[in-house]
């Protein structure tokens, strides 16, 4: 009696041809995750697939509970070993992927299939924890399409062509996307609900807390964008003015510059002088670099970092409370350092900022001392030093190795160096000449994208320079590199280096053919828009957008507007689809359907093939009290049919409408 289809239906089993869909969907979903997870999960996946295939071919059984337990224990032990008990996100995702894979061995009923699909969606979400690029999103969209198709096949009871299945799956997805976008835009945003474990394997990028010779030289060789900036005012500073300050290094041990261990936080942020000061307002979209420092132009006086707490230090640096683990968008207002109040240096600070380690770099110290004795004024000393660099120094990415007295070696023998060599040696010279000085690291310049009006600052733009304290003026930036290679500051790093070095910065991106570079710039612009409008869309941006669109962000307003949109859509549907049909009916048809409704009260329904006269006869016999009305109606209907007077039809219609109701 039962055909095979019924058996699948009633046992709620998954049809064999649909099983393949689930396997494919699972594979598509976990592929990007497996890249982030230990290698042995690949082996487990392969093994499970093989086993499931054998079950399908009828050569093996579904695993018993003991073997399932054994596999699970082994995998959990493996995860514990791999992550050394550090239960971060990776370990959790690893566990998720493992259960996902092992579920294959239990996959037989519809319920199991659904579970696979649901875990699949979680896996897609987990993938977003690792990567959020446009490509990853496109891949996720494909994953969703395959998942939805597999999901739909679970409920399909007949065999369909692959193309048919895929199109119907994509149709579902495409129909859902507009609705999703609306929800994405208007759904209220909340801040993080609790402290979340971090992804621990991802490396920190950018500057560390120390600077040794060669550090920046290796940083500029990495690709990637550090941050992107949009200036909110009409006027933008010139490229040579764009010194993005990140860190201030004050302690020197002869080779390496480090941050002060106990920074003298008087914590008075720079205050703009009274009166109107001109501010530079800009918005920074910072990539997650897993350090707390944020980059800004000197001197920030106001910063809005949204949900992330931050402060401006007395040094004029912007620092977040916690390392930056997600992309952050923040607005800063900076003023010209001259427009800020000058804090006098305490004698202790002065002392600290002019110390040098004993016994290192004697030649450099001696040179500076002679300058101090002969020239006297700090301005003259600075000019002298810059002139000294300008003579026969050489800006290169691959300087010779330096010995123990790195500054002496650099200044007097090799004379070849990258920005950190210049900044470091210049600071040493200044301190030796009793001028308070410090090394600042950050980025210089950037690439301006005219189409989207933003500056893209890459790792390749990493830079180091010096700030000196001048009495009566305050901290002043001096960039010794510009004395050697002015193009570095004015046109960017790719124009300042020789061809051999050029091919090394940003992993050779600058020596690529022009069309490729152009393509890369376009893609960078797309990434910028993506980051700015999609990835960084938060409560603040939502407020702005809703205010622009609807004039406010109150829930009732948004609700009302959507109600209006939906009702107008329905109105259109009624006006364009339903009403024409309704109007196409003749008046007689309308009164007939009204009569049919009346008759439903009398528990009798006119069949499609029945004429009005026949039906009246039937109704009259069934409901004797209606006999008279029925006979009249029957006669009228005949008259209207065979005696084509307008009057007859009219009479019939009135009779139909006024037929006695219960």
């Amino acid at each position, binding site marked *: 009696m039962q055909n095979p289809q019924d058996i699948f239906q009633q046992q709620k089993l998954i049809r064999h041809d649909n099983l393949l869909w689930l396997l494919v969907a699972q594979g598509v979903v976990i592929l990007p995750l497996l890249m982030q997870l230990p290698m042995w999960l690949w082996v487990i996946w392969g093994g499970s697939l093989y086993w499931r295939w054998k079950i399908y071919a009828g050569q093996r059984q579904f695993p018993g509970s003991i073997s399932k337990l054994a596999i699970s224990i082994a995998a959990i032990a493996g995860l514990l070993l791999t992550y050394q008990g550090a239960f971060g996100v990776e370990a959790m995702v690893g566990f998720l992927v493992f259960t996902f894979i092992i579920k294959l061995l239990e996959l037989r009923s519809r319920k199991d299939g659904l579970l696979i699909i649901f875990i699949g969606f979680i896996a897609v979400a987990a993938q977003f924890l690792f990567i959020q690029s446009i490509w990853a999103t496109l891949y996720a969209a494909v994953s969703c399409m395959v998942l939805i198709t597999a999901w739909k096949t679970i409920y399909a009871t007949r065999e369909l062509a692959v193309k048919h299945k895929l199109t119907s799956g994509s149709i579902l997805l495409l129909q859902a996307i507009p609705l999703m976008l609306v929800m994405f835009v208007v759904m209220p945003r909340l801040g993080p609900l609790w402290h979340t474990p971090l992804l621990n394997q991802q490396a920190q990028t950018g500057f560390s807390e120390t600077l040794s010779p060669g550090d920046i030289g290796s940083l500029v060789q990495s690709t990637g964008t550090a941050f992107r900036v949009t200036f909110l005012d009409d006027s933008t500073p010139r490229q040579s003015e764009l010194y993005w300050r990140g860190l201030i290094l004050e302690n020197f041990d002869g080779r390496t510059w480090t941050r002060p261990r106990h920074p003298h936080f008087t914590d008075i942020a720079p205050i703009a002088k009274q009166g109107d000061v001109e501010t530079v307002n800009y918005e920074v979209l910072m990539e997650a670099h897993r350090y707390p420092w944020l980059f800004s132009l000197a001197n920030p006086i106001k910063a809005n970092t949204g949900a992330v707490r931050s402060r401006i230090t007395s040094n004029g640096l912007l620092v977040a409370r916690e390392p930056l683990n997600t992309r952050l968008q923040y607005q800063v207002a900076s003023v010209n350092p001259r427009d800020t109040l000058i804090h006098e240096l305490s004698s202790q600070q002065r002392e600290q900022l002019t110390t040098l380690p004993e016994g290192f770099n004697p030649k450099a110290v001696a040179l500076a001392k002679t300058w101090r004795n002969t020239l006297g004024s700090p301005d003259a000393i600075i000019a002298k030093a810059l002139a000294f660099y300008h003579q026969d120094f050489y800006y290169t990415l691959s300087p010779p190795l330096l010995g123990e007295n790195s500054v002496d070696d650099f200044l007097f023998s090799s004379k070849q160096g990258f920005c950190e060599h210049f900044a470091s040696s210049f600071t040493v010279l200044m301190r030796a000449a009793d001028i308070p000085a410090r090394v600042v690291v950050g980025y210089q310049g950037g690439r301006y994208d005219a189409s989207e009006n933003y500056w893209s600052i890459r790792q390749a733009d990493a830079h180091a320079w010096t700030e000196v304290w001048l009495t009566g003026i305050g901290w002043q930036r001096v960039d010794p590199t510009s004395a050697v290679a002015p193009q570095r500051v004015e046109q960017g790093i790719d124009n300042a280096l020789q061809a051999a070095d050029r091919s090394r910065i940003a992993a050779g991106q600058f020596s690529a053919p022009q069309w490729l570079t152009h393509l890369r710039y376009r893609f960078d612009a797309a990434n910028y828009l993506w980051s700015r409008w999609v*990835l960084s869309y938060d409560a603040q941006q939502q407020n702005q957008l809703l205010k622009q669109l609807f004039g406010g962000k109150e829930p009732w307003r948004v609700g009302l507007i959507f109600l209006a949109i939906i009702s107008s859509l329905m109105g259109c549907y009624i006006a364009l689809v339903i009403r024409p049909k309704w109007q196409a009916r003749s008046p007689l048809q309308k009164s007939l359907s009204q009569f049919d409704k009346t008759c439903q009260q009398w528990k009798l329904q006119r069949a499609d093939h029945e004429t009005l006269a026949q039906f009246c006869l039937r109704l009259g016999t069934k409901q004797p009290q209606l006999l008279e009305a029925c006979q009249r109606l029957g006669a009228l209907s005949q008259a209207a049919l065979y005696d084509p007077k307008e009057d007859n039809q009219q009479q019939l219609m009135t009779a139909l409408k006024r037929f006695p109701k219960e």
Partner: protein
Amino acid sequence: MSKQKEDFPAPISALQKRFFKWVDKRNPMAKEVLLNRKNLYIFPSLTGLCLFALSFILWLLGTSYQNNLVLALSYLLLSLMIVAIFHTYANLAGLTIKILGVKPVFVNDIAHFSLQLSGHRHRNYENLMVRWRQGEPACFDLQGGQILSVQIPLLANKRGILRPGKLLIESAFPLGVIRCWTWVNLQTSAVVFPQPIKGPFPTQLSRGETGEQGSGGQGTDDFDGLRVYRAGDPIKHIAWKHYAREQGLYSKQYTAQLQRDCWLNWDEFSLYQGEQRLSALCYWALHFESIQQPYGLSLPNKQIKPNIGEQHRLNVLTSLARLNIDGGTL
């Protein structure tokens, strides 16, 4: 077969009762029903609630990590659910169910009600589950333009007229998160014959003196003559030789057969009580039919003259089925 599905706890069954009352008011009995927005009901299924929970989990994940793409995925699942409402509705709307009929059955047999399903010419109807309120489900697909005849089983557990009640048609296609269903009141009923139960034939026979009818049974005692064939005459009594000579179709008449016409008399089966009486009558009627013994039926309200053949059998059994023991017919 079990009588499952309807044993809900009291509050739910009370709710269901109210729901059915409402359904009855909206959908009167009919021979043919077109499914549309007036008689289709739609609600998230358990899977749908799970999807809701999944969407919430993703929302939590996205919010705690401030990850907009995870949030978007969460909203995508919600949107899918909303889109599925329309798809699930469209999978049932426009379907026409027409009752074709049902063959009579014996008690404890399964009555197969024949329905005809048809739909829009260009629309497929996938994964339809159809069952009577107390019956087992049957599943179908209906492709565009197809007219499908299906049999929906229902256990006939009582003699008489089986009114199957409401027919459930449901589907959760395409995603299983939304369930769309309808309860239609179809005007149909099946005749349920009594269950044949063997028992001794009452002794005060009205059918002649010789005893056991089971053993003899050929009824071919003495050839009496020929008479013109009437529909219902046993095939083996046909005078084939005459037929072969193209003299016409005749039946051979036997004395024994004429004399031994027997009556199944309600009053004589008094040693059985109630339904058992009908069961015994039913058994003997079937028995006489199988041995080609003409038999008549005498009920308090009805008499059927002795005869034999398919039509006669149907008459007799239907009369048994329709007898109201307390008087009258069902």
